[in-house]
Each structure stands twice: as C-alpha cells, then as structure tokens.
C-alpha cells in the first residue's frame, strides 16, 4: 500500500469512528468498499478485480451462515447487514457509469450481472440455512475449500499459469513479457479468520454473532491485508462497546500511526535498498558486506511488518477497536522460544491454537505415545514448516520453517538440560545480564541466518550465501 492509500484509510477510520449510532453497519460498508478498492488489477482477466473482492464477501457471508447458531440468524436482525453488503456491491458497480471518478477497477460488470451474483449468494444462504442438517459437512467442505484456494494462490506460478491458460482460451493475448499474477488481496488473513471461526464452531466455542459483526470481524479494513489476526470474541466485545474516544485514544492512535508510517515508509523502505537479495548474495565480494545486507534485511522485515501493525492498531483505535499487538521487541529476546512469543504473535497464537496444541494432544493421547523428545521435535518442526509454507509453497520457506523448528527443539532440550545445573553466579546480577546479552546476540544471529532462506529464492542460492557469510567461500 502507498502512503496516499494509507492516508485515505486513516481518513475513513476517523469517519467510521465518529458515528455512535449504526457504527456496525457503517464500519461494514467502509470495510466492504475498501476490499474492492484495495484489490489490484489483473492483466489476464481484468474483471477479476471485481469478482475477487465479491468472492471475499460471498465466502464470508457463507461462512457466517455455516457458523452462526440458528438464534443468531434471524432475518430481522441481519437484513440491514445484508442490504448494506449488497448495496456496497451495487454502488461499486455503479462506478462504471462515472469514468471520470474511477475509484474502483475500470472492468466492472453490468449491474445485471452484479445483481444476479448477489441474488445467487442470497439463494445459497437460503439453501444452506434450509439444509441445516448438512451444516457440519458444509463446514468441512468450506474448510478444505479455503485451504485448497490457499495452496493454489501460494504455489509459485500455479495461479499465474492457470490465468494465462484461461486468458489464451478466451482469445486474449498477453504481452510476451507480461507477468501474470493472481493476487487475492487479504486472502491469507481472510483464511485465518474464517478457519478460526469454523474450527471454533466445530468445537462449540464460537460465540453467537450476527452477520454485521461476523463480516466486520473478518474484513475489518485496518487489519484486512496485514493483520493482526484478532479473535472473534475479543473483536466483538470492542465492537459492541460505545466508541466514545478519549483524548488518550486519539493520542495513542496518532502515535501508532506516526510510528507505523515512519517504520514502514522511512526505515523499512530505506533498509530495503541494502537488503540481501539473490543478486547481491552473488555480487558481494566479501562475507562482511553480506552480513551487513543480512542485518539490513532482518531490520527491514521487522520495521515493514511491525509498521503495518502499528498503522492497523492506530486505525483500529480511531474506530474504538483495540486490535491485539503483534510484535514485542522480538530482536531483544534472549531465546528463540521468547522470540516466537514476540514475533508476529497473533500468527503464532493462531498456529498454537489450531495446529500445535491439537497435534501435541493427539500425540499424547495415542495408545503408544512417542518419546517426549520426538513429540516435541515433530510438533515444532511441523508447526514451523507450516508457518513457512504459509508465506509461499517453496522449498526455501520449508527450509526456513525447518530451521526455526529445529532451533526451537534444540532450545527446548537445552533449557531442560541446564535447568538446575547452572552455577550460582548466573542468577546474580552481572552474570545473568551477561547471559541474557549473549542469549540476545545468539538468538538474533540465529534468526538473521534463517532470513537467508526467507529472502533468497532457492536452496542453492541460500546455501552459497550461507557459505559466504561463514567465510567458507
């Protein structure tokens, strides 16, 4: 996102926070419109710039029908939200008649098609609502559908190749050097939130929420593209509270927004200039320089991501929503375990809740449980590999996940080993400070070396870079 886009979003957040009555519906309308506004164009099939955001809204509405208990699905309570969503879709589509005011994509469908699509979703909602007996099956299908789309989007070139093929089939030729990308804005976080609600519904922990609250939670625009990943029950408690903003709220929001913009558009963007890349890893003549570029990458990715989080938290605060923190000085943590408790915290909490804990529980409950150490190794490796794959389905992301999984396992075993064996001086003031400092340095460098897999594109490029960094080549 550009500074201008973020400033527009901040303006929308101030607008959204200024309403006391009907806040839920106003936030819903703003978020839905932003979903359309942020969706990038698509060269192969231009109309996807409309249909992808539409699919975001449609799948969210369907997920609500499948997760909401009958008492939360009353027509009267949810009709306004449905009308708002349908109205936003139609209003976006009407932009086609005002070419000079092109806020959304120029490839908007005829209102008839948009209307038919809305009717189609409405019909589907009615059918699913009618066949409640099949809700369990539908939820499972939706869960797998969400994961399948995720794999499709995250596998390099897969979506692009499919798009090219479809484009060719439709007789539309692309420029020879055109890079066809299939960008579904915000899909990762959409998937996380939907899976969270579906799984919590399956386990009976999901609170009953109406359509407006549910869709607001899933597509809340400050956190739509880059998190943090809130929990539904926490989000709606804020949404249901009156948004009387105090001076402290304004100051806090202003501080976070300023800090976020500075981190993202000054620090991260400047560090990006000198961050390690495939080309630099080869061209750099000495390992010393490469370390510098690796450090730059480590801080760049931190400032970039935490900057976006600050902006999201600041915008949320302007609307009376206190989004969860995502970073807590991760590079100052003395162990890898603490690092992962303070880096992209809402993501790790999500994986802990929906993968790590269930996996560990099932391994412990097995008739013939594995030795403890192997359970820890398996759960750490598989969780971190999945976190890696979430960034993209490539070998390098698997290696990055494996690197951290192994690191967490070693740290776990080491902590167990040294417990009660550390000499007394290590708990006294200077000794503990020294050990803490050494831990911070070691953890940071372990994480930094891991970024090699993250920043470079292939295992071979990463291996050569690691050799250069270690002074071997």
């Amino acid at each position, binding site marked *: 996102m550009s500074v201008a886009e973020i400033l527009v979003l901040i303006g929308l957040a101030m607008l959204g926070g200024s309403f006391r009555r009907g806040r839920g519906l106003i936030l819903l309308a703003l978020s839905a419109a932003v979903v359309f506004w942020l969706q990038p164009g698509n060269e192969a099939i231009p109309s996807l710039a409309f249909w992808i955001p539409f699919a975001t809204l449609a799948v969210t509405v369907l997920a609500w029908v499948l997760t909401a208990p009958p008492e939360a699905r009353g027509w009267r309570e949810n009709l306004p939200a449905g009308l708002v969503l349908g109205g936003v879709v139609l209003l976006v589509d009407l932009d086609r008649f005002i070419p000079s005011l092109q806020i959304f994509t120029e490839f908007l469908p005829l209102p008839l098609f948009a209307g038919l699509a809305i009717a189609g979703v409405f019909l589907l909602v009615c059918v699913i609502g009618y066949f409640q007996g099949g809700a369990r099956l539908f939820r499972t299908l939706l869960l797998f559908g969400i994961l399948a789309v995720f794999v499709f989007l995250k596998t390099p070139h897969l979506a692009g190749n499919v798009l090219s093929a479809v484009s060719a089939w439709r007789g539309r030729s692309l420029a020879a050097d055109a890079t066809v990308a299939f960008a579904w804005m915000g899909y990762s976080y959409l998937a996380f939130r939907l899976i969270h609600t579906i799984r919590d519904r399956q386990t009976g922990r999901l609170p009953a929420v109406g359509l407006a609250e549910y869709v607001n939670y899933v597509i809340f625009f400050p956190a739509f593209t880059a998190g943090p990943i809130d929990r539904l029950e926490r989000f709606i408690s804020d949404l249901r509270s009156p948004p009387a903003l105090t001076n402290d709220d304004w100051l806090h929001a*202003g501080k976070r927004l300023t800090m976020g913009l500075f981190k993202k558009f000054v620090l991260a963007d400047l560090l990006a200039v000198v961050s390690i890349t495939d080309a630099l890893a080869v061209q750099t003549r000495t390992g010393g320089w490469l370390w510098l570029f690796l450090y730059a990458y480590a801080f760049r990715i931190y400032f970039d991501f935490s900057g976006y989080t600050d902006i999201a938290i600041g915008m949320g605060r302007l609307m009376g929503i206190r989004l969860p923190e995502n970073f807590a000085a991760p590079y100052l943590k003395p162990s890898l375990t603490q690092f992962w408790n303070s880096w992209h915290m809402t993501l790790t909490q999500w994986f802990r809740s929906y993968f790590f804990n269930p996996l560990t529980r099932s391994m412990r409950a097995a008739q013939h449980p594995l030795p403890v150490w192997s359970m820890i190794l398996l759960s750490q490796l598989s969780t971190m590999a999945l976190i890696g794959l979430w960034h993209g389905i490539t070998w390098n992301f698997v290696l990055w996940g494996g690197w951290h999984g192994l690191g967490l396992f070693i740290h776990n075993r080491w902590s167990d080993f040294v417990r009660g064996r550390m000499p007394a001086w290590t708990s006294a003031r200077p000794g503990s400070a020294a050990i803490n400092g050494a831990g911070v340095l070691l953890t940071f460098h372990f994480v930094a070396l891991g970024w090699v897999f993250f920043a470079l594109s292939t295992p071979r490029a990463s291996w050569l870079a690691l050799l250069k960094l270690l002074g071997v080549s």
Partner: protein
Amino acid sequence: MRASVNPWRVLIKAIVLFAIANIAFAVSSPAVGRITLYNRLLPGRLRFPYEQQPAFYGVGYNAPLFEDFDAMFGSHVIANGEKPADEFRLILLGDSATWGGHLPADENLAEQINRLALQTCGGRRIRAYNLAFPWPFSFRDLLILDEAMKYQPDEVLWLVTLSTFDRQNIEMEFLRPHADRALRLMDRYDLDLPWLARRLDSPSFWDRTIVGQRARLNKIVRAQLYGLLWSATGIDFHVTRTPVNPQPVSPDVPRSVAYFDVASSQELSRLLDALTLNDIAAAVQIAGEVPFIVVNEPIFVATGKNSGLRYNNNYPRWAYDAYRAAIAEYTSARGYEFRDFWNTIPPNEFLNPSLHRSPAGERRFAELLAPVIAQAACPLEPQPQSR
C-alpha cells in the same frame, strides 16, 4: 494524576513545527548534499552516479544526483580530501562515451589512462578523473567544469562530438535545478543563449521547501545507501551487471542522409548555425590558466552497406564532415588546443550500440591520448613517461 493532553493541540503544534521547518529550509537552503558517506566511510565513485530510470536505481546501485552538485561531486573520488602534492590532476569532461556507458567503472577511459601510469617530467603522477555525464550537451559540461575548478585540475580534456554542440540536445532535467547557476555562468562569460535562458526559471519558494525538495533529499539519502552496494560489489550501473555484450556492431547503416530533423546537406547552414561552438570559448575562459584541450572523440565508422552515405547510425557523412571542419576552424581561429581522433578506433572496438567503446577501444584511445596529455603536463617534452 496525569494531566490530560489535548490531541488537537498536539496536531496543531506538529503542523506549525512542520511549517517552520519548511520555511527555515527554504530560506537557508542548507547544503545537505555536503553530508556524505563517500570518501569518508565509503570509497568515492570513479564516475558520477547515473542511471536512466528510477526502476534501475536498485539494479545498478546508483541514483543520479545531478540536482545537487555538492552531493554529485561529493560522491566522486575527486572529492577525496586535499589534492596530493605529487598528483597532476587531469579531468575528463564528456558524454556517455567518456563516462563509460556499457563499461564497468574500472574500465572507463579515465581508468585506462590511469593504468598507463603516466608521469609529468617533474615526476608527478598523472591521475585522470572521469567527470563526464551521459548524454551529449555542451552547456551541461560548462556547468560541471565550473564546479570542477574547485578541485584544482592541472589539465582539462573535453571530449566532444557533433551531438555535444547540437542545440537540440538540451537536457532541461539537468539544467532546471541549476537555473541560477546557469544564468550566472551565461552572464559571467557573455554567453548569448536566449533560446536556453528563456527556459530557465529560478526555483520558487515552494520548490525550495523540504516538501518541494523531497525528491532530491530522497535521492541523496538513497545514494548513500547505494554507496554501500557499490563498495561491496564494484557495480555502479545496471548495464554492467552482466558482461559486456560481445555482439559486434553491424557494419551496415541506414540509407537516409538526414541528421535528425536536418534532412540533407541542402540545409547545411541550418545545421552549422545550430551548433553551440561558442561554449568552447566559455569553457576555455572557465579553465583560465589550466591547459584546456578539446578532443573530437572517435566515432564508429561503418564499412558496410550505405557507408558511403553515413559514418554510423547517428551521423551522415556530410553533417559530420561539416562539423569537423567547423570545429577545427573555430578552435584554430582562436588558438585553442584541438585534437581530432575521429577515426582512430577500429569498428570492432565499439560496442552495440555504436556510441560506446569496448575496453580494448578505451585502452587504445587512452594510449592515443597519452602524448596529448603529456604535452600539457610537460610542455617542453612531447613524449609521455611511463613508470
């Protein structure tokens, strides 16, 4: 209990402070370009930073700093401290052929001259500095020369070609930030260039604020970071990231005899009238006591189809021959030093496109220039001395 802070007051204070900072910046015009890592923490560049498009900045580890001469010269190795007592400082002015388009930084003409390890008769080592800038444009070179005189050159070589003096090659993007400097230069050396002067406007107050200068400031900061990449890789131009294109230049040239919008030799006077040869006189004046030599640089001379009509893609024979005659006559009439090397480099030592020389071509040209350089360095002894 903590006193409540009014956010609107904070906002108003921030706006006021921002406005004050902008006004102060516009009024004082601080020499931000002098703050540089080059020649302090990082080695100076062997040629001025240059990239054609912002998209290439990150690929060539380079961002042009022409808006700010302090920053542009500050990034160059010529600004590395005081001039050593044992150095005979030779500066080269010119366009992309001298800058070294398509060549790595250490293969350009100045570095080839330095490899010859020339010495003056008094034993001073002759050190050449590449102060060329891509695209031919004589008045731009005057501005660079004017600034370069601060660095105490002992000799100046101005490598020129027909395009250098073509009035149509006005690089307003380069000139606009130096409008005041350019107008002063015209005034000081009686350069009657109304066609140029009327296009130069001093920057407005708004243009001089931080907001108005943000693009320049951004480039200055980025250029420092690119300095790290240049230091680490030795790469300073996106074209030179890959080995020099070995494809030979086609010996054939187009059939047309036009020189841009001058259709043929029938319009010879229009061509000659448009040449800015008076810039040579201004350059000699700027150089003052420093020996100043105008060098007509080698061009690719085609040998294939239509080579009877044109020397290369840029120059029809009639236009180039007329230019050569004109510049020889102009310099001779005024007693200026002029050397013509137009056909001294064989075609196979040019790169594709035919404007730039290969490393071998640069080496040959450096060897040809050595006696010329030595003549100024040792007026009584025409031969160069090698260590």
